[in-house]
């Protein structure tokens, strides 16, 4: 019996390279932790948070000195906020909001970007010129400003509005990459073969072209999740994101404005949470880019 050596697919090789990248693996661990916190907050922190994120520790006490506690006291490792709410609890529950906004906002951008990008790349001609012009216009617009402009229209934006706004602002990045990939593969043998077999354009796009865009799309999505989490935090910080008392990290920072100097822990920990989460996705995204980039092949 001769042993058959099975070759590895490009994706398998990329994943192998990714596993060797220490920083990317560190990023993946952070991302997993955030996912865990987002899905099982009550496993991590004992305090109760109702739907609106209110947990009052204050009820048992009468004066602010009694319920505004610095980090390290029993039961409140990160201290309590100006209303006596446990900071750790609010941060843990905030993970779900950040992650949802990051993921769904990116998913919306992916959906629009994949559709428009593949149509532009596959069809070419006028429709490509039109979509590309539109993409250019979006790139000419600073994205934070456009998001702010969209949110200005809503009296009290909820999560759906933020998902839509971030997706609406983010799609051109996806579209541009997908378009480039589709154009580069449009004339290749496997597409011609599929055409010769009489497959429809739709099936060629879904079955043959888009799966081959996977690498770059995964990279841009991972980095976009990081960007969206940062954007949501920024919008909440400006006071035009999710309304209180939702424990969004950006909101926690701006709401504690008056207390930064006297109760610094309120200004530190939510920011640390934002930074670590965004860092995790950025490290993972950078690692994925290096892994999928053919120039990095050893």
């Amino acid at each position, binding site marked *: 019996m001769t042993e058959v050596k099975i070759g590895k697919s490009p994706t398998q090789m990329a994943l192998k390279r990714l596993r060797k990248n220490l*920083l990317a693996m560190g990023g993946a661990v952070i991302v997993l932790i955030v996912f865990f916190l987002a899905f099982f907050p009550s496993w991590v922190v004992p305090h109760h948070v109702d739907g609106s994120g209110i947990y009052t520790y204050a009820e048992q006490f009468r004066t602010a000195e009694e319920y505004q506690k610095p980090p390290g006291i029993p039961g409140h490792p990160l201290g309590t906020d100006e209303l006596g709410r446990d900071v750790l609890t609010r941060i843990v529950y905030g993970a779900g909001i950040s992650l949802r906004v990051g993921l769904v906002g990116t998913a919306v951008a992916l959906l629009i970007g994949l559709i428009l990008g593949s149509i532009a790349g596959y069809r070419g001609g006028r429709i490509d*010129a039109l979509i590309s*012009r539109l993409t*250019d*216009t979006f790139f*000419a*617009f*600073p994205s*934070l*400003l*456009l998001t*702010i*402009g*969209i*949110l*200005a*229209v*809503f*009296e009290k934006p909820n999560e759906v509005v933020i998902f839509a706004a971030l997706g609406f602002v983010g799609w051109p990045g996806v579209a541009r990459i997908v378009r480039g990939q589709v154009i580069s593969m449009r004339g290749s043998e496997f597409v011609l073969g599929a055409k010769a077999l009489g497959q429809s354009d739709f099936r060629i796009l879904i079955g043959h072209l888009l799966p081959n865009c996977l690498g770059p799309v995964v990279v841009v999505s991972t980095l976009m999740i*990081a960007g969206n989490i*940062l954007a949501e*935090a*920024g919008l909440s*910080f*400006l*006071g*035009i994101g999710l309304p209180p008392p939702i424990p969004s990290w*950006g909101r926690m*920072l*701006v709401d504690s404005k008056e207390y*930064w*100097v006297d109760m*610094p822990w309120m*200004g*530190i920990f939510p*920011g640390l949470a*934002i*930074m670590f989460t*965004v*860092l995790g996705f*950025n*490290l993972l995204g*950078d690692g994925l880019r290096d892994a999928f980039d053919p120039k990095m092949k050893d």
Partner: protein
Amino acid sequence: MASGGPGDGPLGLGRGILLAYTLRRLLQAIPVILLVTLIVFLLNAAIPGDPGRIRLGQRADPAAVEAYNEARGYNDPIPVQYFNYLWRLFTQFDLGESDVKAGKSVNEILEESFFVTLRLALLSIIVALIVGIGAGILSAVKSRTAVDYISMLIAIIGVSMPVFWLGILMIIYVAPVLGLPRTGFDDTNTYTMLRSLAMPASALGLLSSATIARLSRSAMLDVMTQDYIRTARSKGLAESVVVLKHAMRNAAIPIVTVVGNSFGYLLVGAVLTETVFALPGLGREVVEAIKQRDRELITGGILLMSFVFIGVNLLVDLSYAVFDPRIRDDRS
């Protein structure tokens, strides 16, 4: 990029091509600017609330509210409002009057706040340049050493850090140590102005330096592996001459581009910094206007910021073309 156009042709025609390229880029900017005004205007029209009520108060006489809306043209059909707005904008540079700040024109408000933001952005770009290019070159020269890994780790942390959080940390820890004012803007003289901008500019500049550092590093690494660098070294030139004269000059083009583009982002990204440090800049003015539903000010502010952003990026692209002849022939 679009194909066709008068600028296409063989390389080496020099000035004519550059001029044609400039004209083509300016022409391309026109539909973008128009589309931007349209998007902003439609957003503006969609903002809820009756402008007359906002201006005159909840208990105002309905007839007065109606008269106000009529006089300001808020009752006209949207396309008419849009054309009137464009007409005033492009013939008189008039952005209208604030609905909330009685009697103040949007131009006045934006002019005051724009110069605060501009000063902030200029100071931050200086910080970003020094730190970013310095760290980038150091990393590239000491590539694959501890210095490289540490500065690149700091850079990626910098990319992930929200600017307002760095601001908060500075307010808590840096201000008392250096004796700087925690927040606010004081422009009684240059000294007080610089003192009140020191922390905001550092926060904004340090975070932008992270992107610049990462790009400078890869641009330098690209250049350092080229043959002419080996030639320069084999001629026996000092390493500092090789790095600063031969490599730096060729790595400069991508670096100049990213610095130029960051400047656009700094002007716009200043909105978060201005909020954290309570600076009366353009971004903060727009955010306040959004909270108070001051339509004309929202529209004017967003338009001004977009135009500045588009203008800066256009200038960067053009200067890029001056430095690198390959860019002018953009038929890719």
